[in-house]
């Protein structure tokens, strides 16, 4: 790692800590009340879902429409694990229960991702979209028909252990992992598949392996996002994870820019706040929401950030550069 990257990581990490501290401060003095806090938690969960889908759709270039299926698998696994732990090892602190449940949820979702990815990723483009859509629905129908998930009645009694603090740091961790992954050797292999699969194979990139890997990681993080959702809302039913949920996540990715993690973050913030902010328009709320989406897509078809990333360092650099140029000009 060269000096510049380390510096960039440090600046951004510092910015994240400052944001966290600022939010905690505002919460303590009551400016961010629990209403805003609830919205922030949903934003963070949407960031996890969108960022993980971005790996599959934006970086790997595989259009998938079944992300809600992985979210569902993770949510149900995490919820039932937590219920079991709570019943047998009730003395464990909440954070431990949450972490164990999420890790198991992540692993199971990854396995589901591999199982679906190996046959599905032989297909490309539209065909893959259709087959992932099908698999997403299959997961939902299975949940509907097995007993321990509560079927259509839903699963109740899930420990409510997701809090702003732990969701925030888990989101930071997941985005960090995804960022470093996409900028690593494996990440470049993944991007090369998006750019030209035939050329990538010709230069020796094992396309199937990297496709399945990217898909599994995306599925795994979606499962963790689903787990956090389950532990926040404390009630699950299969209809939560229908096709429309997959589309909602995809909309965040497309709006933010396919291939830009920070774009997904910004889009997740905008699209989660928007329906709440439009509440005062009552019945016209969804009309306005759709209208704004259309406008944004017309003026920014590549998404808010395209494929570029936002970094606090670039702001710092620009500021520094401007200062230097001013000094230079004054000298001249």
């Amino acid at each position: 790692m060269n000096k510049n990257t380390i510096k960039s990581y440090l600046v951004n990490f510092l910015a994240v800590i400052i944001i966290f501290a600022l939010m905690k401060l505002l919460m303590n003095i009551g400016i961010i009340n629990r209403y805003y806090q609830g919205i922030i938690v949903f934003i963070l969960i949407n960031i996890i879902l969108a960022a993980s889908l971005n790996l599959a759709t934006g970086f790997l270039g595989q259009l998938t429409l079944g992300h809600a299926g992985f979210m569902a698998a993770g949510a149900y696994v995490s919820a039932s694990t937590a219920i079991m732990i709570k019943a047998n090892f009730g003395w464990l602190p909440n954070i431990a229960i949450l972490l164990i449940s999420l890790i198991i949820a992540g692993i199971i979702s990854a396995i589901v991702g591999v199982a679906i990815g190996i046959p599905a990723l032989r297909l490309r483009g539209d065909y893959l979209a259709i087959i992932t859509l099908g698999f997403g629905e299959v997961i939902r129908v299975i949940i509907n028909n097995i007993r321990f998930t509560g079927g259509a009645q839903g699963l109740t009694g899930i420990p409510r252990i997701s809090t702003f603090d732990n969701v925030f740091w888990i989101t930071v961790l997941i985005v960090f992992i995804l960022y470093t992954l996409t900028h690593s050797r494996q990440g470049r292999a993944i991007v090369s598949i998006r750019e030209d699969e035939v050329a990538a194979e010709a230069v020796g990139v094992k396309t199937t392996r990297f496709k399945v890997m990217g898909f599994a990681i995306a599925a795994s993080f979606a499962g963790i996002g689903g787990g956090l959702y389950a532990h926040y809302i404390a009630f699950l039913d299969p209809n939560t994870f229908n096709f429309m949920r997959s589309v909602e996540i995809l909309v965040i990715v497309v709006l933010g820019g396919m291939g830009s993690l920070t774009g997904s973050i910004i889009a997740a913030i905008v699209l989660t706040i928007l329906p709440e902010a439009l509440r005062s328009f009552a019945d016209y709320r969804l009309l306005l929401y759709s209208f704004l989406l259309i406008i944004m897509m017309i003026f920014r078809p590549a998404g808010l950030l395209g494929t570029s990333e936002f970094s606090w360092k670039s702001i710092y650099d620009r500021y520094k550069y401007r200062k230097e140029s001013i000094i230079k000009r004054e000298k001249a």
Partner: protein
Amino acid sequence: MKSRKLSLVLVAVLILTVVLAGCSGGSKGTEVIKIGVIGPMTGDNSMYGTSVREGAMLAAKEINAAGGVDGKKVEIIAYDSKGDKTEAVNAYNRLRDQDGIVALVGATFSGETLSIKEIAIGDNMPMLTPTATHKDVTLNASNIFRACYTDPYQGATAAVFAMENLGAKKAAVLYNIEDPYSEGLAIAFRDKFSSVGTVTNYEGYTAKDADFRAVLTKIAAQDPEVIFLPDYIAKIGVILSQIRELGLDMIPISGDGSDGIEVDYADVAEGMYYANHYSKSDESKLVQNFISNYDKEYGVQPNALAALGYDATYIMLQAIDRAGSFDSDKIIAELSKTDEDYVTGHITFDKNGEPLKSISVIKVAGGKQVLVDKVSAE
């Protein structure tokens, strides 16, 4: 470069809307009593939330016209949830923090109510759901009450009605496996009916199915006297049409999801029975007053959800009136003492906050609701 500037402007506009909307939140006043209502008011299920809202608004209007509660005006603040759990949680948080509601009449759907449940318990918010029928809604929650009966209770009552009033020995059940309401009713009906009679078929379908001829023929082979169809009007209408088309001789029975079926499916629904919260043909002054006032206000006949929203608002405001303060514990204590006649029947609550009331069984005759009997499963 130009498009970048434009996108910056767009983002700025968005942020501005957010900030402005955040500022518009009301302050906590003592002059008005704010009651929250949550339900789907847009989207596929908008009719349900809208009915509850209109019922609640009507109740508040009547109470305000009569001088309010303790001299204070009542204000209903209704938020849309689209039937989505995330939105329902946000709406609840907003009602509590931004609007400062005293009590909640909601939510409309079971899923919404269950996702608010844990938060509301933490807040000790007096909560009375008009329409959430899932059995777990009031479980281990001293602050949560409901105005309607549960799915299991309704299903069991339908079974009792089939056995005792219709004298049926054999029954078939056809239900929607993807819908918690439908499944809840189906399970209860099967369990209750099989204690005395025989359940010949217990068949499921999914929400998107539209052709039931095959399964109906299969059911007809067992020759049941009644067929239990727990679902909503749109689906039941289709099934009934196909039962008529095949010329099958069995009496259809259904739950409160059939409320209003005599309007759209008068000919195929002729002779069917369904359980409901109240009957428009009920001659009590309370019911007829409600129907005429509702008609005057909104220009349509009220459905069962509107009646429940209306009742729930009355129950809640009367409890607040008796409590004489906005203290949650006092309101909850008074809610549990409710013992009065309402549009949907005489209501008292058991220790879990479940209403103890009888169910109106309605027969569709000549395109009209006819009240057959008031039954209870016990």
